[in-house]
């Protein structure tokens, strides 16, 4: 899917926006980047740090790095109605280098899209040194000039990060300072511009945080307690006639506490009025609350998470939000499953109004107990549900009370049991309800039951097989699915597999794949051939719609 052609984008927040509006909004923002004082400060800081580091450059340092390539050769596939792109090959490549000498470090990341893999943002094109930095870190002081990643609190108001699987990189180019006072008080500040694909967003972002280790400050024993205040400002010039404030402020306060088996954390966030495409051009402020309560003892763990969001989408510009265009991070707080049929329709956070939560319980039946057996048994129960917030944008929203529209529900149980020394099994069941409204379609619910399991059979110390089977039953959307996989591993270097995912009741298409991998030390090469279905792929809580394809996929990753 090409967001620049279709004008549509499914971001992390289930939003569908029209690109024409984005173009209009961006065009009104003066491009002041070349004359930006931040850039001059950044350049000066970079030079200072490099000069300081260069004094020691001939001494013994440490150069490290990594290389990653993911390339696909696409094929036409008449049976599945898949047409290969004109350019049959696509390749995403990343080369990263870091140099360290004592307290100094510097590095670059080079990216080449030759061209970008089908489905990822087509604005990732050509190649370039998209990430470069120099930094100094002492025990209580740090400074970075150049590009950096950062997160404040839980990311409700700011997170700059990288997720290569979906072509996301929102690193900030600018400067960052950090100071720790006796480990009790931590100060952090930064300013710069967010990356937007191969370019920079047409806005400046500034932020900072003050966090205090309360438990240490008042000498509490067997307890940890921290509190932090975070702030972010996005400035994007505006010269039009509408009452648009070029500044948007976001604040959050978070606290965490743990004593013995109990833990608690909470974060409240507020965002000032933000007249943007992703708020449907409503001059509306936003807020969010995240609460998490846990109880953990040996053999038992549970955590309850609650979150409400009201107009908390926060783009790097006033245009559309979505992959690579967000300043903050609002992931779907649901369990991420390992079975492919349980992730056919993952939840997509509705950042403008959503309320719900997740309960996770994990228990280990001890070895030697009647139910645990000789090797013990691991039980996991997880439930999550999300609704719209009651109310509307005119009359206001309830604080936590849900409305009548269910966005998502997932109730699942997983059992892990070693039957004998060489045989380990997993059994899984999930009851899921997915509302296609979260990806911009009609309101409704796709209900499904997923049953799955796998068996690992270790033949010898280094040889093992894994057999996996799955079934999804549904009367909605694409109806029923079945899947199976056989994998062989020769430890520690070699694996190969063959799998099939079959839809019956709708398309009756087999999505088969076979492949293998070879690993040597810090290098891994994998080759796969087969057919992949269309749908959402999610990485790190952000989802992207991927078209179906048939082809040969080579991936190689290596670090040194």
């Amino acid at each position: 899917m090409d967001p620049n052609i279709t004008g549509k984008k499914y971001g992390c927040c289930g939003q569908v926006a029209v690109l024409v509006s984005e173009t209009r909004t961006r065009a009104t923002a003066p491009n002041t980047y070349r004359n930006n004082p931040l850039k001059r400060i950044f350049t000066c800081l970079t030079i200072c740090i490099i000069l300081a580091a260069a004094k020691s450059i001939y001494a013994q340092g440490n150069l490290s790095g990594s290389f990653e390539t993911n390339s696909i050769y696409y094929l036409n596939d008449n049976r599945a109605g898949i047409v290969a792109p004109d350019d049959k090959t696509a390749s995403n490549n990343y080369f990263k280098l870091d140099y360290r000498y004592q307290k100094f470090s510097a590095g670059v990341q080079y990216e080449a899209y030759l061209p970008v893999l089908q489905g990822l943002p087509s604005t990732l094109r050509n190649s370039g040194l998209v990430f470069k930095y120099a930094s100094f870190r002492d025990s209580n002081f740090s400074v970075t000039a150049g590009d950096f990643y950062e997160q404040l609190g839980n990311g409700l108001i700011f997170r700059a990060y990288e997720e290569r699987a979906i072509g996301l990189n929102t690193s900030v180019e600018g400067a960052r300072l950090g100071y720790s006072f006796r480990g009790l008080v931590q100060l952090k500040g930064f300013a710069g511009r967010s990356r937007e694909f191969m370019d920079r967003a047409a806005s400046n972002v500034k932020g900072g945080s003050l966090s205090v280790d309360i438990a240490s400050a008042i000498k509490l024993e067997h307890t940890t307690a921290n509190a932090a205040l975070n702030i972010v400002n996005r400035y994007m010039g505006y010269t039009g006639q509408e009452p648009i404030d070029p500044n948007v402020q976001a604040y959050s306060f978070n606290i965490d506490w743990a004593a013995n088996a109990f833990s608690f954390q909470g974060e409240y966030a507020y965002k000032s009025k933000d007249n943007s495409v992703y708020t449907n051009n409503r001059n509306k402020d936003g807020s969010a609350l995240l609460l998490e309560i846990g109880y953990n003892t040996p053999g038992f763990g549970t955590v309850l998470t609650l979150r409400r969001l009201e107009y908390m989408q926060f783009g790097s510009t006033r245009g559309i939000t979505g992959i690579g265009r967000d300043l903050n991070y609002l992931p779907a707080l649901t369990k991420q499953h390992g079975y492919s049929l349980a992730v056919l329709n993952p939840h997509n956070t509705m950042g403008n109004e959503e309320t719900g939560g997740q309960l996770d319980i994990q228990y280990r039946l001890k070895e030697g107990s009647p139910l645990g057996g000789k090797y013990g048994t691991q039980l996991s129960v997880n439930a999550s549900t999300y609704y719209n917030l009651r109310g509307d944008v005119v009359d206001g929203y309830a604080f936590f009370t849900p409305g009548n529209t269910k966005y998502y529900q997932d109730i699942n149980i997983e059992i892990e049991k070693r039957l004998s020394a060489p045989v380990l099994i997993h059994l899984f069941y999930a009851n899921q309800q997915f509302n296609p409204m979260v990806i911009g379609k009609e309101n409704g619910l796709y209900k499904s039951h997923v049953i799955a399991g796998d068996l690992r059979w270790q033949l010898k110390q280094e040889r093992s097989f894994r057999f996996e089977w799955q079934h999804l039953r549904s009367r909605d959307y694409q109806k029923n699915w079945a899947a199976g996989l056989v994998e062989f591993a020769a430890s520690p270097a070699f694996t190969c597999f063959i799998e099939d995912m079959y839809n019956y009741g709708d398309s009756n298409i087999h999505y088969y794949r076979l492949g293998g991998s070879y690993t040597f030390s810090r290098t891994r090469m994998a080759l796969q051939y087969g057919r992949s279905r269309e749908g959402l792929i999610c990485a790190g809580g952000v989802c992207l719609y991927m078209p179906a394809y048939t082809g040969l996929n080579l991936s190689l990753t290596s670090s040194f």
Partner: protein
Amino acid sequence: MKKNLLLGLLSLAVAGASAQTRLPEAQLHTLQGQTINAQSLLSDGVPVVISFWSTICKPCIEELNAFRDQWTKWQKEVNFKIVAVSVDDARSVGRVRTFASSREWPFTVLLDKNQDFKRALNVNTIPQLYIIEADGKIVYSHIGYTPGSETKVLEVLKSL
């Protein structure tokens, strides 16, 4: 200009630099919320096995369960410690503590919430494991886990 300067710096560095052989500086968090420096993992003066994992990575959990099952036996053979570094972000980091507690992992579990430590060690794929000598020197690394590969870890630890 800054691009050229950085490239120049890196070109010069190549001459005198060695590959990543030492534990880098980075901040990590304990499950209780305390901030620690990666260098403090070496403070016990014994070799350290660092395993990058996440709650959504099945092979990672299999590897850590295998270490748990062998823990008592291995500790009688060689003195070392294991640090399981979770790279779960805000979506799933809340489940890390329940994972570690319920599975009764007898080793240290730390959080790398925005993957700073993972990037510093240039980890692209998990699970990835490092064995680090008491003086901070990286002596072994491996990507992925298949049943049985934990025996190589014991073999390396014994050779130190």
